């Protein structure tokens, strides 16, 4: 997994609540047996219209927006557990997703793929959307060490929570398998004393 410390870029706004993982990557694209190529189909049915033409109104197709931070509405990533959603967002080039609320499974999947979910207050989320609306070139800084997100050129800054263990993993590029394998003896001992 790639290491994550600080990230500063412009951001893409997606001001829609309850974005489910079926929207992030529709089920018909889940037939692959590797992790490659999902970025091409991220938000497929919002990026393209029913005839397969580019939907120019969709935020990802708007040339004024760029950067590898996605700022999304409340309850992002709800629905299916498909990790393909995280692979698709990473594949497209996102490194950070900001929302006022994340669905559980998506959040875990994102962290396991070096994609940082940053949960902010609703008021700060509104401030982020407002900043992009005023100037699409606004830069945002996400600092994992200090657990802060700030709007460059302003005093606006907010801290975010992250599990300390997951923070260590993100910063160092570790994953859970390494940790679990290091505990193999403990797991085997647990199996022996397990009553049921």
């Amino acid at each position: 997994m790639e290491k994550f410390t600080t990230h500063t870029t412009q951001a893409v706004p997606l001001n829609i609540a309850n974005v489910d993982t079926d929207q992030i990557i529709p089920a018909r694209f889940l037939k692959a047996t590797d992790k490659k190529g999902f970025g091409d189909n991220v938000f497929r049915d919002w990026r393209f219209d029913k005839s397969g033409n580019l939907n120019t109104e969709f935020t990802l197709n708007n040339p004024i927006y760029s950067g590898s931070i996605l700022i999304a509405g409340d309850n992002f990533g709800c629905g299916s557990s498909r990790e393909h959603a995280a692979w698709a967002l990473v594949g497209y080039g996102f490194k950070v997703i900001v929302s006022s609320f994340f669905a559980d499974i998506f959040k875990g999947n994102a962290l396991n793929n070096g994609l940082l979910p940053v949960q902010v207050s609703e008021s700060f989320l509104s401030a982020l959307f407002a900043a992009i609306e005023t100037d699409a070139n606004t830069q945002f800084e996400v600092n994992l060490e200090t657990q802060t997100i700030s709007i460059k050129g302003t005093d606006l800054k907010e801290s975010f929570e992250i599990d300390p263990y997951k923070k260590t993993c993100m910063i160092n590029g570790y994953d859970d398998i390494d940790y679990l394998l290091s505990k193999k003896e403990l797991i085997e001992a647990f199996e022996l004393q397990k009553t049921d």
Partner: protein
Amino acid sequence: MKKTLFDKVWDAHVVDSIQDGPQILYIDKHLIHEVTSPQAFNELADRKIPVFRPNQIVATADHNTPTLDQHLPVRDELSRKQLAQLSENCKKNNITLYELGHKYNGIVHVMAPELGITQPGMTMVCGDSHTSTHGAFGTIAFGIGTSQVAQVFASQCLLLTKPKSLRVTVNGTLKNGVLPKDVILYIISKLGTNSGTGYFCEYAGDVFENMSMEGRMTVCNMSIEMGARGGMIAPDATTFEYVKDREFAPKKDAFDAKVAYWKTLPTDEGAVFDKEYYFDAEDIEPMVTYGTNPGMGIKISETIPVDNDPSFKKSLDYMNFEAGKSLIDTPINFVFIGSCTNSRIEDFRVAADYVKGKRKADNVTAWLVPGSKQVETQIINEGLKDIFNAAGFELRQPGCSACLAMNDDKIPQNEYCVSTSNRNFEGRQGPGSRTILASPLVAAATAIEGKIIDITKQLN
């Protein structure tokens, strides 16, 4: 200390705790399917890590399988390859697989309970969010991502932070025609799609105590639709009776010993939950959804609420519905009875009971997709197939089918489908399709009438 059902099962599976971090939770049973496992197998192969406990893993092919002509090679090349990959991975790693055509094949959350693989007090995971279904047995069961599938392959454990606890209590007597699906759609419509995020939910009260195991599975199945990783119902005589004598259930003395343990699992009197909600059974009516998330549900006799939120409006635009209007008399061309929510024998009995002696409306395509080969056999043996055939319904072969439309079972663009599945997300049942979630009874009635009707008027 007073403990909840969830605490008891969780605490019995903690291998170790990391200071200020997650716990290592031991997983008893790992269910896998073709869509979310291949990348996990690849990960292990790339890192030369063996599968740690292959005999605690059970595989089935369900998401991507055709529901017609299952005896023939799968036509779609990518699907065929994905299914072949599952077979190869299972063979290589000594994992039991119920592949297409096997007598135990079926939707993962239908086949595991009916084979007695699911038992009270266990921890179970699967790379599928509806793993919450198994909580109906008093099991900690939840969906995981593919990275976690790889972790369980490697260590039979997961690193997890213990979720908070939530209890939803529904007391009273359900009205005629109100099914378990209506109960859960009602709860989600009241609590919203993220009220359970970060929580494990226990369902309590006489409504659930009086429910069959099939009904309890329907309820727990949709816990994830309110954000809860899992739902649980205390195991009782109904649970033990269901598990008894099933293929992989413990037998004789071993079973009795288990039951003695399972009886210790229900939440202690006075145990404290982080959040509690109470509802009255009498307030619940047959439900339908009008929007693009499962929380957007109303009683079938109600009108769509008025809300100025842009996401709400976007949702109604997609559905081509208007705020303040009723769904009654909306013409419907597609009806789907199936999915891990409602594809068990009881669901087909309810539908057949209503359909018997009637004929579907000409405009309707009605698909019935059993949850497993065993359910399919039951449908035939109980004579339900004849009833459905006579009514013009199409009984297909088992699988996830039009719930997520990964296979060819897609609802056409702009068409409404009254569906017994669990998600009404945009395009869930095929690009541009519009899903209305409902119970098997409402779905059957819709197929007969060719439009949504107020079923309560027929029943009372």
